[in-house]
């Protein structure tokens, strides 16, 4: 019942704040000045290196989670191809980062997210090579960190597994697009209102479009988790996502 209210609330809020110009996807090729491209790339790089070490270590410790890791990658791959209509009258897509971040920790998904972004930039002209650093930062770094730490926090607050996963994945998704608005606002401060005016403008557009999609991503992540609890319990226990007795 609770979830239905959340859905209704999301749709309701989105209708109230419906903006005229709506968009919500990765930053397009060439649409971020070079200095920002390089800066975001440099900020993302350490996370990617940490992620590579983390993947190596996790697989060495536990070779049987390799398949699960590939599945988390496939989930991101699949979800970021699904452009879903939103209440603002334009389309956006979920990121699927939350699942892997909750399972493997925040940095593993940086590497997987980067791979998906490269694929989309090269083959689909979606996102871009010059904006790769910025998009990796918003999607993989911010999305992964937010999902992972909010999951940990919610579990500490003794919320149920499903609710924690739902909120964590949805938050990771929405914060990705909040980060994108921040990046755009920093690069394109408003002539009169400055950074804040731009930020409010981009945020209004991004956050609203993404609300229903973030809810969808949260639900889809819970679906996958239900299946994992049924069929891959041992792996979840190995990864300390589930405790033995649960």
């Amino acid at each position, binding site marked *: 019942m609770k*979830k*239905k209210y959340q*859905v209704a609330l999301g*749709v309701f809020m989105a209708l109230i704040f419906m903006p005229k*110009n*709506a*968009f*919500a996807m990765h*930053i*397009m*090729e*060439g*649409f971020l000045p*070079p200095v920002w491209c390089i800066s975001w790339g440099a900020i993302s790089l350490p996370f990617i290196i940490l992620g590579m070490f983390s993947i190596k270590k996790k697989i060495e410790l536990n070779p049987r989670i390799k*398949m699960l890791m*590939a*599945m988390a990658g*496939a*989930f991101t*791959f*699949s979800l*970021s*191809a*699904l*452009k*879903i*209509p*939103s*209440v*603002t*009258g*334009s*389309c956006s897509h979920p990121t699927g980062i939350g699942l892997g971040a909750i399972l493997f920790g925040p940095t593993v998904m940086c590497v997987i997210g980067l791979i998906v972004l490269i*694929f*989309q930039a*090269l*083959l*689909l*002209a979606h996102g*871009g*090579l*010059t904006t790769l650093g910025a998009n990796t930062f918003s999607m993989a770094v911010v999305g992964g960190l937010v999902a992972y730490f909010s999951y940990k926090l919610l579990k500490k607050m003794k919320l149920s597994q499903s609710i924690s996963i739902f909120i964590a994945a949805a938050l990771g998704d929405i914060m990705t697009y909040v980060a994108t608005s921040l990046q*755009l606002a920093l690069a394109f*401060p408003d*002539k009169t209102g400055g950074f804040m005016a*731009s930020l409010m*403008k*981009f945020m209004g557009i991004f956050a609203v479009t993404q609300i*229903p999609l973030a*809810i969808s991503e949260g*639900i*889809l992540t819970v*679906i*996958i988790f*239900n*299946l994992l*609890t*049924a*069929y*891959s319990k041992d792996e979840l226990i190995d990864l300390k996502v589930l405790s033995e007795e649960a």
Partner: protein
Amino acid sequence: MKSKKNDKILKKNLVLALIVIALAVAPLLLVKNGKFGGADDKAKQAITQIDSSYKPWFTPIWTPPSGEIASLLFSLQAAIGAGFIGYYFGYAKGKKSASKSDKI
């Protein structure tokens, strides 16, 4: 007992999947004049609104020649991902029931 538990998961997941579908369909019904276009063009508009002199300094190396080709590639991406997810759960389920029957 066990199949009952799996039935419960199936039911729960079906309800959840229906909510996701409803969330995707609702905008189509609610937003009357929505174009539901790719966001990219609107993004360009918003940026040029703020800074009218901005020119993109790099263009994609390769762009899908048509909307059809682009949607082909997107559906390929989704299909590969979904295919592997299906493979994973088939593998996990098979492995689990095999280890169960070993124990008996």
